[in-house]
């Protein structure tokens, strides 16, 4: 069982990851590179102006963090893939590893739920994966380009993770729970993260042109959808291919 899960997910992740790496190369990556040319532009200094009356009245820790985040607090000495082939390969590898990870989580969730894995069910669950990790978090934290202002990365990661978990469980309860009460709990889990609200900087400001950011937000959602759908289809088909052999054994 475990062997079968790992082989199917490894192959499915590889197929979906390579496909999406190509899609990224034409959609999101050029926008990220374009946005990087604006990083360090004057607008990132502007948030200092907001340490004004409002900020003084209610201490905005996020504000200070946001400025630091925009300014890239990373170690400039650390290894970084060189632009061109190295960067493309590095991104492709990261996407493939993420796809394998998503595939493993998808199969694990379906197995725990006692779901039979077929191309159809795996694709349906993958749609859930996209809703949980792509669409729902995007409502609070739009996919962002380098240089965009944002709250502290840790706070955003916590909200992102919480939203993904809540949306995943919520979708399952709404779709599968037998009682009305548990379906209502599911609905509350879907809405909850957005009622709490994602962490945002006190003022949204970015040196990156709004058109570029808007284009990136939609491109990113499409990339995420393509990734999940291809993972679902590949997992379903590869799992299905193993069925006759297992039945014969």
């Amino acid at each position: 069982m475990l062997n079968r899960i790992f082989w199917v997910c490894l192959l499915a992740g590889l197929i979906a990851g390579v496909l999406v790496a190509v899609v990224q190369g034409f959609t999101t990556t050029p926008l990220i590179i374009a946005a990087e040319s604006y990083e360090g532009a004057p607008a990132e200094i502007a948030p200092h102006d907001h340490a004004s009356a409002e900020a003084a009245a209610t201490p905005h820790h996020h504000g200070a963090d946001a400025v630091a985040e925009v300014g890239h607090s990373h170690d400039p000495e650390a290894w970084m893939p060189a632009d061109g082939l190295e960067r493309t390969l590095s991104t492709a590898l990261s996407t493939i590893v993420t796809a394998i990870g998503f595939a493993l989580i998808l199969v694990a969730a379906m197995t725990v739920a006692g779901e039979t894995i077929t191309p159809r069910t795996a694709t349906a669950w993958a749609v859930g994966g996209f809703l949980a990790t792509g669409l729902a978090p995007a409502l609070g934290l739009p996919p962002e380009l380098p240089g965009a202002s944002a709250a502290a990365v840790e706070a955003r990661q916590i909200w992102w993770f919480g939203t993904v978990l809540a949306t995943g469980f919520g979708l399952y309860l709404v779709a599968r729970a037998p009682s009305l009460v548990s379906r209502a709990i599911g609905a509350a889990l879907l809405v909850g993260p957005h009622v709490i609200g994602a962490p945002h900087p006190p003022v949204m400001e970015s040196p990156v042109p709004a058109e570029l950011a808007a284009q990136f937000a939609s491109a990113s959602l499409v990339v995420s959808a393509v990734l999940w759908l291809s993972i679902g289809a590949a997992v379903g088909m590869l799992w299905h291919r193993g069925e006759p052999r297992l039945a014969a054994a």
Partner: protein
Amino acid sequence: MTTQTVSTAAPARAEALKAALCALVVGAALVFTTGFAMPDVLHNAAHDTRHALSFPCH
């Protein structure tokens, strides 16, 4: 008849759950490494993927 079905299905279910748990742990570890891990080298290598899949990046 019913007893027989239960006695063969239960170990299979237990094995499936164990395998699912392993898959979940490994899958989550992989996604954490590419999407969340803080070390600069990992961040830089996965940078474009993090942005493209809307993981909070920096």
